[in-house]
């Protein structure tokens, strides 16, 4: 896909500059994402473009330990539900992008 292709090209360019601009290499390899929940908590995590987002989810649950039960909510990015196996590269996420955490609702009345 386009996102991946772009990242691959970026990696190639960085290889050519290997040793010369390590800062640029690091900047291109990682993305910093934010998880915002309805209680006003914000959690930031820097991860690789190709790392699965499950790591971000687990990181949020660890930080919210005791207040949010693991697995009870949903991570939304651009209105769509995130899956743990997806990567920032697949979703064309950008540095500073925000993910919303919402607890799932349950409905049923007798």
């Amino acid at each position, binding site marked *: 896909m386009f996102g991946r292709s772009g990242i691959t090209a970026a990696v190639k360019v960085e290889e050519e500059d290997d040793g010369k601009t390590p800062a640029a290499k690091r900047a291109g390899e990682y993305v910093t994402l934010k998880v915002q929940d309805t209680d006003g908590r914000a959690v930031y995590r820097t991860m690789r473009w190709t790392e699965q987002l499950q790591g971000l989810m687990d990181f949020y649950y660890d930080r919210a330990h005791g207040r949010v039960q693991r697995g009870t909510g949903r991570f939304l990015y651009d209105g769509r539900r995130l899956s743990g196996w997806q990567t920032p590269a697949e979703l064309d996420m950008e540095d500073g992008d925000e993910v919303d955490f919402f607890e799932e609702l*349950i*409905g049923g*009345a007798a």
Partner: protein
Amino acid sequence: SYFSFYVCYTECKNKRPRRTIKPAARNVSKSALPSGLDALNPNRRTLRTASSNRDKKNKDKLDTEIFELYLEDLWKDIDEEKRSAYAYFDSLWFHMYTSGHNKSNVLKWIKAKKVFSRQYVFVPIVIWGHWNLLVLCNFGETDYLGTDKGPRMLLLDSLKTTNPTRLRSNIKRFIADIFKTEEREENEQFINKICLEFPEVPQQNGDECGIYVLYFIYCFLQNKALGEDFSQLVCQTFPPLPCFPFAPYKSYANMFSL
């Protein structure tokens, strides 16, 4: 059509969910999982389940995650023409809007759904612990306001005792904001003329209002002719609930088996 009915009926009679399903890919299994699966089994009342009190209490209730997975599967089965004529909102969006969290984000996501280019837009609503289905019909046909071909809204509720007055005001505000976000030229007087109707729909016996909302959407999706007048659909007798397709259940179970 008869064959499809027969297949559905056979599947309904034979299907039993696994009592315990442990997803290998996840650290913690979700308590809502057994209730979601149980609720779709027509013999659910005869099942003995060794579940916790919470699970027993919520066994027929759907949460928004399971609902979304089913709806995604239903959407895969419709043809391309319907996929462009219809749309649906995420079942969390209405709550996110009414609670005020990320209100502007929700309206932005809704704009991307192109409501005014659709014949039907399905809006699942979970509010005060109950599921409803709001259907936005022909919103783009503004020249036909007041006729059957014009914009109108249907609120399908499987529990008659629910008081629609409070929900009505939430819906009106919701619709007004959708118009505002789209920068439509229609004024408030126009928006107030869009009727909110409460068609007679099958009523639930237990806690399965979430299943009924999926069922209502399924009935709309079964509409054969794309241009068919929706009022005819609403007047029709709904097919019996056991005909609700259980293929999504298989996909859902497979998803967790991996």
